[in-house]
């Protein structure tokens, strides 16, 4: 239903619209005012008046009116229905600059129709123009400018108005691009006051500036003087005359001037005192100028009374003052050069060209005089600034004058001291420092009066020699700067020499930099010595060419591969440093930086590894160990020596040599002794392993019987005859004992005392440790070890019984001890057979011996044990005759 109604309304609207196209062109109403310009912030009321025709047509009245500003409906509170056809809207405090206001009606309850629209323009009225001023550029028309005041947001016209008392001039309308100035169309008339003001006008009002009344001639900016020229005077070297042509304004007004000048190489202008140029003129002579100096001039002018404006500066013009005689003597110095002529010196006199302000002209030449003490003066004319002459070793006085077109300078006097002159009295507290991009030198004067000072300086370099430059200062100067072309980052050696009346004083030197910089290269560090926990680093001083400044300190940076970097500052005077607390067996990386006042520079990185042990540490370990070993060995040897008997007993018991026994003498089958005498042979064979020690112990200390003594004599005889064949195996076993044996002793006592223990051993020819020996040998044992009683070993006794049953009746006080019982059960048949063979052969003799023994009542018991497997057989002490017998017997049996 609603949709149908809406459709009908639209259709009707279109119908009416199409029906009355022509009528719609005629608006249904209008708004008053038509084109309002509203002042910002003010109230504004617009009235919309509907036409009767439309009201009837759309069946509306003023109450149907609604307002829109920029397509936004204005609240109804601002509406006022004036009557049936008119409705107004009021805006307070208008702030929009440009507003579209439309009057609308709602027809048929829902169709909004625009009745009329206007555009409201907002802005501000013009402010009163301020600061109106005018200028009359000579030859041009007057131009005035002003301050327009605030922005009006409206098109505002400015009009410059001007008039005389009797005449009014045409208005000057500003152009759009220059709304704050205007140039009038008429030429200014000087000496007639004119009144000028500005009118500013826009839609919201018109305002007029203050009137200014002036004579245009007081607003003139003259054209600058032209054709400025400069001329000098031959009579006066200190003046220059300027001439110029004034502008045409000079015909109307009087002028004053500003004249400025400067030297050609300066940028600072000096000005002639204004009071000297306060009147109209066309020339001016500038005084107190320096001779032979080029000056640049410029000039400007303005009205003499100061009203108006200064003209622009004229074009510059320059001129050179005339020459004057040199105002100062040149700086004068000398160098002594080696001469090959004996008694002469080569002296190079050097001097500086005078600066232009002292030369006062072009220097044509120099005149040098040289005077030896009380000799004739010699004059020389030199065009150069140096002159070399050979002089004697005497003292000389040289003078120098510079000459130009006008005259000569004063003479510079220089005393060349004698060859043997000793300079003294130097300056003190010599300092050099940079300041204001200059290298200043300061010193304290000596106590004596100084005529002047000579400063010499040169660049210190390892690559080039020191070529000095120099300058001279007056004797009153104690501080100056080096006036040479100095370079930054160069080390200068500066020498100050005071010059006294009698010659030069002792020079003093100092090094300085005009400007320091970081070194070009860092120091190269290396190790001098590397220890377990420390490293001695060393480096060379940086060459002066790369220092670029005073090396204030070094910084050593070192680190391990994984560790943090450590920095150490080192004084610049050092060339080595010891890094301590290092870790052993570690790779270190070290680099070094050298610092000047302006910064530092790193050198190359160097690596080194600390050793695992400190120097001498190994020796400290090894030597004591070795010493301890040696000591231990020595102690061991000593112990062994002291305990040799014990050791020998345990390891290598002495076995008496059976071949030296009396038994051997008795035995017809004594084996060839030569096989037994040679130790070497014995040791070379080295196969005797089974040693039987036979120990014969005397039953008591009774003296032997005569028979025994007889047999002993026989033994002695035999001993003498077989001296060279006696075996010494006992002495060579374990220790080479010098203990006498029975075989080597001739004395009875000693035989009785020492032969109480006669050792014999039978070296059984069986292999060592079951090896089969190749040769059966005998060895004598010198062991004093008594044969042990084998009570616990009845088999030993049994063996004896079995061996010799005939002697079984012997008392059992003395006995043979068999250390090894294996012999009895040894399967070694060769030894058994051999033993049997021996017993079968000498059975008869054995019986006889047995009888002899049995005859003796106090015969010692005897026990013998044969140990083919190398067991010891011990004989009892004190039975030498029997012992010999037994030896022989045993040997016989063995053989």
């Amino acid at each position: 239903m609603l949709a149908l109604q809406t459709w009908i309304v639209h259709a009707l609207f279109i119908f009416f619209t199409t029906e009355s196209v022509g009528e719609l062109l005629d608006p249904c109403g209008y708004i008053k005012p038509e084109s309002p310009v509203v002042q910002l912030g003010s109230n504004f009321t617009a009235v919309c008046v509907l036409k009767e025709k439309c009201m009837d047509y759309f069946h509306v009245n003023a109450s149907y009116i609604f307002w829109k500003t920029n397509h936004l409906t204005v609240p109804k509170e601002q509406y006022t229905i004036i009557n049936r056809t008119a409705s107004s809207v009021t805006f307070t405090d208008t702030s929009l600059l440009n507003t579209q206001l439309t009057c609308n009606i709602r027809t048929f309850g829902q169709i909004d129709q625009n009745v009329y629209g206007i555009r409201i323009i907002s802005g501000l009225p013009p402010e009163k123009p301020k600061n109106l001023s005018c200028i009359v550029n000579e030859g041009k028309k007057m131009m005035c400018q002003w301050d327009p005041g605030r922005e009006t947001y409206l098109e505002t016209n400015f009009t410059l108005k001007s008039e005389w008392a009797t005449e009014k001039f045409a208005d000057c309308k500003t152009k759009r691009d220059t709304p704050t100035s205007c140039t009038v169309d008429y030429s200014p008339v000087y000496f007639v006051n004119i009144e000028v003001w500005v009118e500013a006008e826009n839609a919201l009002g018109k305002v007029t500036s203050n009137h200014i009344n002036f004579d245009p001639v007081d607003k003139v900016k003259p054209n600058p003087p032209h054709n400025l020229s400069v001329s000098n005077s031959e009579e006066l070297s200190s003046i220059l005359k300027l001439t110029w042509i004034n502008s045409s304004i000079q015909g109307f007004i009087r002028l004053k001037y500003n004249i400025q000048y400067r030297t050609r190489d300066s940028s600072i202008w000096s000005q002639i005192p204004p009071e000297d140029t306060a009147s109209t003129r066309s020339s001016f002579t500038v005084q107190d100028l320096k001779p032979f100096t080029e000056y640049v001039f410029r000039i400007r002018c303005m009205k003499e009374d100061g009203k108006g404006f200064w003209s622009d500066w004229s074009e510059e013009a320059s001129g050179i003052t005339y020459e004057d005689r040199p105002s100062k003597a040149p700086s004068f110095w000398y160098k002594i050069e080696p001469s090959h002529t004996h008694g002469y010196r080569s002296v190079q006199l050097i001097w500086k060209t005078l600066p232009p302000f002292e030369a006062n002209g072009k220097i044509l030449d120099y005149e040098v005089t040289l005077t030896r003490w009380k000799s004739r003066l010699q004059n020389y004319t030199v065009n150069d600034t140096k002159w070399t002459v050979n002089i004697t070793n005497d003292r000389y006085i040289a003078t120098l004058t510079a000459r130009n077109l006008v005259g000569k300078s004063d003479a510079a006097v220089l005393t060349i001291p004698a060859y043997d002159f000793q300079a003294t009295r130097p300056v003190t507290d010599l300092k050099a420092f940079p300041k204001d991009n200059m290298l200043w030198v300061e010193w304290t004067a000596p106590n004596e009066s100084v005529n002047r000072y000579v400063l010499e300086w040169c660049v210190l370099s390892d690559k080039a020699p020191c070529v000095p430059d120099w300058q001279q200062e007056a004797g009153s100067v104690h501080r100056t700067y080096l006036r040479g072309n100095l370079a930054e980052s160069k080390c200068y050696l500066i020498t100050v020499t005071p010059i006294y009346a009698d010659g030069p004083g002792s020079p003093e030197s100092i090094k300085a930099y005009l400007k320091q910089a970081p070194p070009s290269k860092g120091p190269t560090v290396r190790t001098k010595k590397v220890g377990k926990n420390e490293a001695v680093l060393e480096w060379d001083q940086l060459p002066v060419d790369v220092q670029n400044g005073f090396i204030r300190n070094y910084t050593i940076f070192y680190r391990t591969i994984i560790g943090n970097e450590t920095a150490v500052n080192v004084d610049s005077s050092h060339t080595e440093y010891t890094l301590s607390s290092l870790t052993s067996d570690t790779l270190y990386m070290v680099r070094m930086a050298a610092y000047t006042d302006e910064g530092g520079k790193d050198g190359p990185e160097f690596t080194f590894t600390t050793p695992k042990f400190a120097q001498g540490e190994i020796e400290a370990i090894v030597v004591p160990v070795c010493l301890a070993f040696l000591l231990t060995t020595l102690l061991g040897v000593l112990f062994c020596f002291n305990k040799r008997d014990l050791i020998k007993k345990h390891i290598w018991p002495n076995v008496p040599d059976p071949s030296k026994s009396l038994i051997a003498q008795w035995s017809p089958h004594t084996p060839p002794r030569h096989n037994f005498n040679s130790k070497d042979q014995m040791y070379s064979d080295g196969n005797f392993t089974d040693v039987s020690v036979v120990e014969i112990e005397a039953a008591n200390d009774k003296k032997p019987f005569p028979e025994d003594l007889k047999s002993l004599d026989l033994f002695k005889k035999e001993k003498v005859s077989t001296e060279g064949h006696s075996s010494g195996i006992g002495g060579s076993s374990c220790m080479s004992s010098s203990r006498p044996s029975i075989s080597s002793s001739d004395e009875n006592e000693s035989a009785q005392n020492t032969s109480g223990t006669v050792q014999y051993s039978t070296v059984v020819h069986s292999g060592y440790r079951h090896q089969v020996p190749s040769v059966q040998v005998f060895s004598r044992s010198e062991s004093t070890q008594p044969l042990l009683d084998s009570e616990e070993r009845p088999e030993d006794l049994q063996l004896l019984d079995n061996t010799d049953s005939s002697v079984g009746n012997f008392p059992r006080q003395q006995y043979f001890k068999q250390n090894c019982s294996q012999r009895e059960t040894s399967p070694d048949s060769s030894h058994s057979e051999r033993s049997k063979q021996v017993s079968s052969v000498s059975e008869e003799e054995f019986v006889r011996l047995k009888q002899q023994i049995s005859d003796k009542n106090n015969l010692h018991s005897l026990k013998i044990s044969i140990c083919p497997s190398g067991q010891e057989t011990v004989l009892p002490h004190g039975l030498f005759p029997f012992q010999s017998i037994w030896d022989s017997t045993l040997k016989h049996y063995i053989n």
Partner: protein
Amino acid sequence: MQAQLLRRTLPSLVLGLLFLSTPAMGICLDKYQELFGQLQKQTDIMQCTSLLLDPYIKSQGLDKDGLKEHCRERPGAFPSKDALQRLSKREFLRTLHTMLGSILHRLTALQRDVPKAQDLETLNRAKQNIRGFRNNIHCMARLLPDSSETTEPTPAVPATSPSPTPTSDTFQRRLEGCRFLHGYHRFMHSVGQVFQEWGESPSRRRRHSPHGGLRKGVRRLQLSRRNKRLPPRGQLPR
């Protein structure tokens, strides 16, 4: 007695009518010395032949030998120096004002014979200067006290303007123009001399423009002018 009174008041009345006839516009310089200085400077400029006569002679081809001799002021065309010196200040100013008006007309006529734009510009500048001079005379006249110089006799100045006798001869017209300009410069020179006498002669200054009386008069003029001009100022046609 009445005749004497009439004789005294008549010049003032004429001068007053003269200046009243001038439309009141900007404000005159109310400093006598400055104004007087301006007048002197103007006469110095205007008597200089380099501004008008010399360019004219050159532009009109009258700078040939012998022709300059004919470029002489026509006698009686401008008041003589003596005649001007005999005038009172007020009469002098009035005469000067009148003469300058005539000169302006003559210069306008002379412009028709000057084809070159540069010469036209020169003539225009000269005319503008004369207008300015007349403005200053106007202002000076207003500075003079009303009662001064009433005893001076009527000046013997040409009653007519210095217009030449009309002629169709171009050369003659040029020559007349040259004579006119010559007379103009001479006249301005004479005016300058008169002004110089104004400044130099204390007695004359005292007689013609006593400071006290002048200052009073100026003050009075200022007051009256303010009273008269200030209210209608915004209503004056511009």
